[in-house]
């Protein structure tokens, strides 16, 4: 069966009668990733930047799980199989570790400078 052309496919993506494909998950992952990048770039609160990082990692995780899924991949040869799920698990663990360290750094910064504004962290500026 030939896949439908691009414009028709994205139109049908909104239909609730079509089964879900990997591309659906890729779109969700792209939106999460982009929201995270915008969050990291614009937030002045250090905790807001941290939340952006969580969103980016989450968007990548969605893609890993989608490529690993037996319900979505077109055939077994292209599927990541168990590797995708394992990578997603490790990403979740590393995100937890990263959040712990980043939060400790943020609290230290808050104790030393009495602010959480990342624009004020310019002590190293020449």
């Amino acid at each position: 069966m030939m896949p439908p052309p691009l414009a028709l496919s994205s139109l049908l993506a909104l239909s609730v009668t079509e089964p879900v494909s990997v591309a659906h998950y890729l779109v969700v992952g792209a939106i999460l990733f982009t929201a995270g990048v915008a969050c990291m770039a614009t937030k002045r609160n250090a905790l807001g930047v941290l939340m952006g990082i969580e969103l980016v990692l989450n968007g990548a995780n969605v893609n890993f799980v989608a490529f690993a899924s037996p319900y979505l991949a077109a055939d077994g040869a292209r599927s990541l199989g168990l590797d995708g799920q394992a990578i997603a698990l490790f990403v979740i663990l590393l995100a937890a570790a990263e959040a712990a360290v980043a939060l400790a750094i943020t609290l230290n910064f808050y104790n030393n400078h009495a602010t959480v504004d990342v624009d004020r962290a310019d002590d190293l500026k020449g």
Partner: protein
Amino acid sequence: MTPTIPMADLVAGGLLPLAAINFHTLFFLLFAAIACGAAVAVVAADNVVRMALFLVLSLAATAGLFFLAGAEFVGAMQLMIYVGGTLVLLVFGVMLTAQAPFVTMKSAGGDRLLAGFVGVALLAMLVLAGLSVPAWRQPASGTVPEPTATPLGMALVGVRVDQPPAGQPVDAVRSGYLLPFEIVSVHLLVVLVGAAYLARAKRRKTPRAIEVAASVEPPEAVAEHAAIGRTRAAASVLTGEPS
């Protein structure tokens, strides 16, 4: 799998028959809308407490997407570690630093505009790249395995019991994830020790904020003591030690 119904029939029928609805797709759209909407709300919100709330929503809905994709164990871990652990940590950080000027910090308008422009461009590129591969737009066909976490659990202790991908011999040597599992465990331990060390209560005599305030405008007691030349007493006011 629900048979595909052409769009023309739906339009002609005027009403979507219940039997034609693919409930997997319906719940996917529901969770995807929550996840994406909350993620965009995180970017749009200025209040850091609301940002944390929307982040909880987004990550929990993503766990729902994982369940729908057949990754039950990953979804459960997402709920337990991300939503239950990491975000509680973030909320603690929000509460510890939530003083009036830091709850709502607006970015500059130009920064927002630039970030929106770059974000839309990045999103367009990623979506087009994701939709450009025909194989990724074809839904799965054929048998799906039983939903169980056994293969993943066995693989994490080093034994692969899942079927190899088509085209590979069954007896191909495939390693499990025991080594990455151990590395990540030690990494987590080291990171927790490091975080506890970084965030430990320090024996600072005065917080930096008070030092800054004192250097800008010395309190009366300091000025008085300095005026009569008792510098040691002035230092004792700053450090809080009895002179």
